[in-house]
């Protein structure tokens, strides 16, 4: 039997390790990645004109980042690696891609989706003002472009990334006005036991948190964000702590509430389609590398290659330990219920500037109980991001309005093209 055609989407930690495991077993994959260089978001490589050492960019993770970059560099000549290539549709064993304005279809027997994570976002009044950035975006500005998102930055939201990005900004010399965490300190204390399952990672987190204090940066935990104020751009962040209303002056906000899968979906029920890494379920970069390798080994075994049982067992043990740590993080930094409490004039859909009140009206007028119906009526989720930014809050809102569980309202169906495709204008050569 001929070896199957294998396609992998995403050259981050999971995709690269999957490709490597396959290559080790004599199987070549087509590796499609939207970025010009491999590494994913966490280990994103800067443009060539940046010469600084990996340690300045990836901190404690520099060794892992460099190892992954070396792997993709080696693989690039051994496999069919296609950087700067968008996979915009998948259908009946065919992946439709676009690279430098040229479309191509990749036929596959086995597909690995390793599309990674993005910020888990919640709307707030004023979150569309220039100067508000996703927290992960604030980090990318620094590690990919050497820039801070503003002169005076507030970091608002929750999750380990909140403290990491603030630490990285402080270290780079950016001025931070405040770090505001919606989750209280006691949530983190309660999660300590589970977090201790990965002591080194926990220690790093404590170090980042502590160094903010050393740098004199105000960290407030257990805040309720009220909104971001300003006319043409960010001017203040308003929040409540206990019964006290407070505000902090700034011109930039890094906003994020943890991470979510870019796929908007967790598991594959389609034969021959595998999911790996944060695109399948948030586990972090270390888990993504292991998960990618695990998927590669599974496919190799399926293709009749040697079944590497001891390596698989080892990966599964490590993944189980990382899952305990992840459960601890979810306890320490749970997603607050904000989507159902937003004022009616808050913009819910950033793409088309659709406000909470308009969506509520649509839900009531058409007795909407399900997400895709809501999308059809209100256009929320129909804009260019396809609900990547507002989908969760929209689901919360619909669940609250119709007194259903969050799971009962369903989820937005992604439609191809999953990202907008640029087309040349008529008349251009």
């Amino acid at each position: 039997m001929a070896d199957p055609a294998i396609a992998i989407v995403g050259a981050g930690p999971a995709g690269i390790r999957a490709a490597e495991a396959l290559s080790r077993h004599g199987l070549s994959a087509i590796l499609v990645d939207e970025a010009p260089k491999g590494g994913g978001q966490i280990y994103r490589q800067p443009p060539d004109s940046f010469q600084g050492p990996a340690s300045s960019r990836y901190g404690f993770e520099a060794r892992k980042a460099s190892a992954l970059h070396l792997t993709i560099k080696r693989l690039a000549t051994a496999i069919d690696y296609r950087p700067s290539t968008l996979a915009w549709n998948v259908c009946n064993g065919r992946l439709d891609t676009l690279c430098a304005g040229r479309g191509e279809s990749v036929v596959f027997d086995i597909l690995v989706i390793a599309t990674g994570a993005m910020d888990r976002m919640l709307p707030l009044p004023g979150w569309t003002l220039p100067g508000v950035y996703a927290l992960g975006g604030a980090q990318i500005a620094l590690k990919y472009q050497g820039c801070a998102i503003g002169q005076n930055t507030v970091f608002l939201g929750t999750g380990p990334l909140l403290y990491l990005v603030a630490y990285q900004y402080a270290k780079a010399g950016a001025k931070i006005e405040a770090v505001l965490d919606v989750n209280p300190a006691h949530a983190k204390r309660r999660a300590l036991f589970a977090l201790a399952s990965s002591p080194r990672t926990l220690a790093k987190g404590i170090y980042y948190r502590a160094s903010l204090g050393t740098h004199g940066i105000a960290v407030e935990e257990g805040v309720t964000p009220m909104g971001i104020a300003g006319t043409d751009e960010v001017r203040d962040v308003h929040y409540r702590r206990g019964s006290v209303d407070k505000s902090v002056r700034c011109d930039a906000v890094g906003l994020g509430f943890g991470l979510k899968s870019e796929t908007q979906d967790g598991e594959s029920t389609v034969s021959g389609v595998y999911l790996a890494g944060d695109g399948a379920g948030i586990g972090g970069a270390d888990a993504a590398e292991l998960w990618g390798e695990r998927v590669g080994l599974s496919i190799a075994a399926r293709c009749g290659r040697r079944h590497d049982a001891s390596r698989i067992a080892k990966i599964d043990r490590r993944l189980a330990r990382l899952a305990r740590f992840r459960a601890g993080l979810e306890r320490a930094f749970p997603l607050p219920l904000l989507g159902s409490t937003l004022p009616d004039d808050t913009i819910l859909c950033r793409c088309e500037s659709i406000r909470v009140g308009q969506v509520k009206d649509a839900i009531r007028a058409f007795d909407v109980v399900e997400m895709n119906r809501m999308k059809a009526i209100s256009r929320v989720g129909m804009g260019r991001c396809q609900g990547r930014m507002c989908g969760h809050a929209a689901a919360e809102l619909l669940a609250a309005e119709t007194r259903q569980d969050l799971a009962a309202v369903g989820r937005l169906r992604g439609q191809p093209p999953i990202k907008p495709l640029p087309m040349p204008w008529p008349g251009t050569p």
Partner: protein
Amino acid sequence: MKPSPLAQHSTDEAAQPRMVRLIEAERARLTFSLDGAPATAREGDTILTAVLTARRYLAESAGGEDTRAGFCLMGACQECWVAVDGTRARACSTLVTAGMSVATGGHFTVG
């Protein structure tokens, strides 16, 4: 902590660009065209970085109600599409090249 490089900036906030170069700022310069006027970028800048280190907003929102300055910076939110040399490109994931022509107004019209 070392002194903030921001301290060197003037206190006139309105005149300052949005993004602040902190690391490896002194890369080679290149010129491009921004809304018909000559502009300067550093080699390795995305369009978004080049624009926001020159001024405080990127482009009109898709519906034209307000201005935006990018959001996710990782190709997910689709808020930073601009017109580039006869087609469109996401400003956060497209590097500036010398002589490139970038237009940031009226996303749904040609021009």
